[in-house]
């Protein structure tokens, strides 16, 4: 196996992989879910509130999911995925090369 080539590949790849961050996916989906469920919660009929033992569960869960989603997006904003930099590569000593 050509380990050297692979290592060059690996650097390039890690950069590509970081462009696509799972925080964006979670944040995005939960913001959308949060908005949908909050809206449903605002317009819940009495029958639906009664079903949930009088708890406005859609409203609360909707807001909760919206906040979670926004927190993930905020985290992404504050600590964006960065291309490989020296501080990252510093921990690479013990990383096995790709095979």
């Amino acid at each position, binding site marked *: *196996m050509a380990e050297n080539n*692979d290592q060059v*590949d*690996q650097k*390039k*790849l*890690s950069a*590509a*992989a*970081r*462009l*696509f961050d*799972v925080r964006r*996916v*979670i944040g*995005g*989906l*939960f913001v*959308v*879910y949060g908005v*949908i*469920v909050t809206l*449903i*919660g605002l317009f*819940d009929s009495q029958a*639906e*509130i009664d*079903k*949930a*033992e*009088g*708890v406005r*569960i*859609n409203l*609360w*869960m*909707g807001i*909760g*999911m919206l906040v*979670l989603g926004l927190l993930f997006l905020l985290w992404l904003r504050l600590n964006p995925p960065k291309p490989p930099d020296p501080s990252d590569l510093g*921990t*690479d000593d*013990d*990383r*096995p*090369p*790709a*095979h």
Partner: protein
Amino acid sequence: MVLAAESGLRLDLDLFDYLILILYFATVLGVGFAARRAIKTSADFFLSGRSLPAWVTGLAFVSANLGALEILGMAANGAQYGLLTLHYYWIGAVPAMVFLGIVMMPFYYGSKVRSVPEFLKRRFNKPTHIFNAISFAVAQVLIAGVNLFALALILDALLGWELWVSILVGAAIVLTYITIGGLSSAIYNEVLQFFVILAGLIPLTIVGLVKVGGIDGLFDAVRSGPLGDAALHTWSNTGSSADNPLGANWIGILFGLGFVLSFGYWTTNFAEVQRALSAKDMNAARRTPIIAAFPKLLIPAVTVIPGLIAVITVKGLGADEGDLTYNNAIPLLMRDLLPNGVLGIAVTGLLASFMAGMAANVSGFNTVFTYDIWQAYIKKGRSDEYYLRIGRYATIGGVVIGIGTAFIASGYGNIMEYIQQLFSLFNAPLFATFIVGMFWKRMTPWAGFWSLVLGFLASLALYVAYLTDAIAFNSALEQSFWGAGVAFVTAVIIAVAVTFFTPSKPDDELRGLVYGLGGTSDGTAIVSGEKVWWRNPVLLGTIAVVLAIALYIPVW
């Protein structure tokens, strides 16, 4: 119409619930396509290019275990055995996860192996490797089929979809996102699924607790109900197996569940270990199972507690068959308590966790098939692109066979339980072989092979004896504790005995694989320090174990 809905499990989903469900599937497929851009080599496909941060691999690690079978099963156990079910989450998981992170991960990650069978090949020999690779591959495909079948059953019960439609739709979605996105897309979806399933279970638990008058109301109701006070304690009634609903004594719980079953499952199951191998460096790999231990500690709050709530609020729960079996505790609560909106989230979470369970099996299967069977014995020395392509074919093959086993499974009533048990027993001899091999450098290659094979046969023999009523046990659960114990002891004895009659490997070949022999990348990391405390695996692991002990105190 109301009566018809009340009598069955059928949920009344509206347009918005379906919108939530469809959005999820769209996201999952989108993740697969996005992950594809990052895949250039087979290591990217099978190990996510070893590039993921610890929190991602950690959540994926717990999520790969949090399949829907597990969620429904643990709620069922909660309904049936009460708080004794907590043992599965605490003593039955946390110590093993911490051990994996602190002690075993340096060997796994440091030896640069790409799979658990590959570790066996390096430590022992090819026959050991073949035996383990093939049995793992077969088990994964079978379990994937069972997951698929269970998904179809639940879709049929909840939404009224035909079984074959659900099986094909579920398989098509998993196939698409694993084939194009590889392990990255499996892992990203596991992380996403982790949050969605919680978003479904939390409202269920909140509304349920409101209904029964909070934790105090719940415990009072359980105490005066048929389960009684014994179901509200974890250890105090385990002096004798007759005094508690679980039917096990503390020795069985401590050694059977807490040691053999738990360590066997968590430390040698490649579908789990693979998540840690995809971490970006040694420290992240070691923290993977330890980070996973923290959610694991808290998950019973949204599985075991709903199980107990269901016992109190659903009349007639605990029937042998029909809609009111213990396994339906969570779907029944969803039907009774959740209004449209959060109901859609809960259904989505349940479906997501079935698919994540299946995806974990499929992504474990394609890796072992490609690296450990195809590359090692069938077509050696081809280009990396070639193996990447084989990996994609293996994924398709695995899913297609999974569909086949799903249809076979649909012909049996209770096959899920049996298969789960059969393959959890598979892990007990494997753990014995591992633990002896990792800490005793003299253990010989053939000792590895025979301890694995005979340990497996011993547990299989006990299982067959149980099925044919030759040996009686109080419950299938008790049988599984004993089966694991017998397999473990047999494997250890064989490992030691065979070692005295066969030649050992020279030390040089064992570097990085055995405790006490430093390797090229140096396995001394066991007590490695880390600059920031929250990145120190040993400290984090200690906190997890202490928390597990502390959580036991109020429910002693």
